[in-house]
């Protein structure tokens, strides 16, 4: 894995007339940030749903003005909102998430079995081909789907049959946080759960398999090579090569070249291999980004320096990207869903922090600028490239 790879280039969207829209979910509302193709000046709209935790917002790839948002509250439960005009106006849609059949049990912290209980939707993933079809990742971990634009949601229950009784919540809960739809195979979906690991279906959700071979979690699991139970923080892929996946695990940055059949560590020279997000460059499938975090208890960058690390070789060799980022007294975190890339040329990269800053780079990470500095803690960032 140490050998350098060629850097393929794919899917560039030329044109300064294009724009970018960032969908930012925070602990106290949602914000929509928009800019033209230069990505220098930004308009900030929000807070939408002020006071609510906005876990995630994402637009449909086939209708970017169709945006779905997960709105949640410890007091008032789960709501789902939909916009048909790019986030200007919103309407509440269906929010009834009911586990299929008898919910069953999963492992609890003391080793006993604990009933599945719905808490919230962590992640929404609109279909690549149909604006009315959306997947939703839940805590307690399960995958739901709507095919009617969000009016009704049905669970894909076979996922929890993939050794669900052995899954256990991490400190942040047992959430299904990543949903990757394979653009080359409509029947293949990858999902990731904290703390259960990666799972894949090749039949549109009828059956699922744990895909955690090669992950090692010493001192976290009784069996460090366990088939399930790994604390996967995030996985990602480039649409041009959907069989190549990258992972930020609790500890370790990993890579799979065989559709998650096996994983190899590519942490290389990172200052720490703990972190949450991982993102791929829009046009260079071997260029990936992580934000190393000092440890799993401190949850802030090493030495108070906020550094994004970029590898242009698909892992192992990493360079620190610091220009424009605070290099002293910085003790924020970047959460798993809070990093995104646009598909303009050069590729834009964005991330939000628990300190309320959203940073953007219009040159693939070479330099950064704070788009906003004082939002509530950022939970998620998605980038939409607008025609």
């Amino acid at each position, binding site marked *: 894995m140490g050998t350098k790879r060629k850097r393929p280039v794919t899917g560039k969207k030329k044109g300064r007339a294009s724009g970018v829209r960032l969908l930012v979910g925070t602990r106290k509302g949602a914000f929509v940030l928009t800019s033209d193709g230069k990505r220098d000046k930004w308009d900030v709209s929000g807070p939408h749903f002020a006071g609510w935790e906005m876990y995630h917002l994402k637009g449909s790839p086939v209708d970017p003005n169709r945006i779905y948002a997960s709105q949640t509250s*410890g*007091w*008032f*439960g789960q709501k789902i909102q939909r916009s048909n005009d790019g986030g200007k106006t919103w309407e*509440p849609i269906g*929010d*009834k998430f*009911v586990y299929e059949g008898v919910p069953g049990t999963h492992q609890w912290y003391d080793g006993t079995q604990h009933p599945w209980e719905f808490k919230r939707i962590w992640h929404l993933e609109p279909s690549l081909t149909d604006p009315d079809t959306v997947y939703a990742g839940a805590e307690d971990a399960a995958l739901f789907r709507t095919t009617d634009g969000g009016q009704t949601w049905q669970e894909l229950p076979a996922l929890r049959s993939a050794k669900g009784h052995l899954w256990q919540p991490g400190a942040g809960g047992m959430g299904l946080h990543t949903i990757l739809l394979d653009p080359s195979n409509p029947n293949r979906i990858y999902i990731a759960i904290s703390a259960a690991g990666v799972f894949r279906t090749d039949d549109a959700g009828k059956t699922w398999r744990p895909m955690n071979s090669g992950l090692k979690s010493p001192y976290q699991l009784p069996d460090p090579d366990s088939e399930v139970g790994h604390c996967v923080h995030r996985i990602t892929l480039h649409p041009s090569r959907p069989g190549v996946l990258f992972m930020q695990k609790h500890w370790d940055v990993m890579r799979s070249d065989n559709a998650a059949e096996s994983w190899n560590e590519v942490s290389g020279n990172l200052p720490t291999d703990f972190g949450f997000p991982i993102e791929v460059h829009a046009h260079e499938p071997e260029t990936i980004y992580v934000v190393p975090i000092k440890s799993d208890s401190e949850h802030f960058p090493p030495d108070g320096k906020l550094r994004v690390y970029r590898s242009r070789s698909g892992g192992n060799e990493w360079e620190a990207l610091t220009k424009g980022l605070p290099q002293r007294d910085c003790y924020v975190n970047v959460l798993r869903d809070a990093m995104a890339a646009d598909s303009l040329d050069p590729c834009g990269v964005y991330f939000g922090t628990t300190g309320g800053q959203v940073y953007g780079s219009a040159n693939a990470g070479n330099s950064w600028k704070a788009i906003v500095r004082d939002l509530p803690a950022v939970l998620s960032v998605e980038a939409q490239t607008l025609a």
Partner: protein
Amino acid sequence: MIRVLLPTHLRTLARVGGEVQLDLQNAVTIGAVLDGLETAYPVLRGSIRDHVTLRRRPFVRYFACQQDLSHEPLETRLPEPVATGVEPFLIIGALAGG
């Protein structure tokens, strides 16, 4: 006519400014008020009580005439001043900081 006072977030969700007014045909019980409220404002379903079990959400409380009715069964009749619209039925987001 029954008056219902909602917490801020639920007023925003239901897109109502102040009190909500309901006309109930039958006995004015806690359950009847909640049913009427959710029928008039379907977006509130799941936000006050669970979609399926209909159990009150943990940090939501019910008050009427300075009485905490949160633990009373849904069949409980509300006090006369609430049933006649003199006093509102209060749905409150509990203080739950720490």
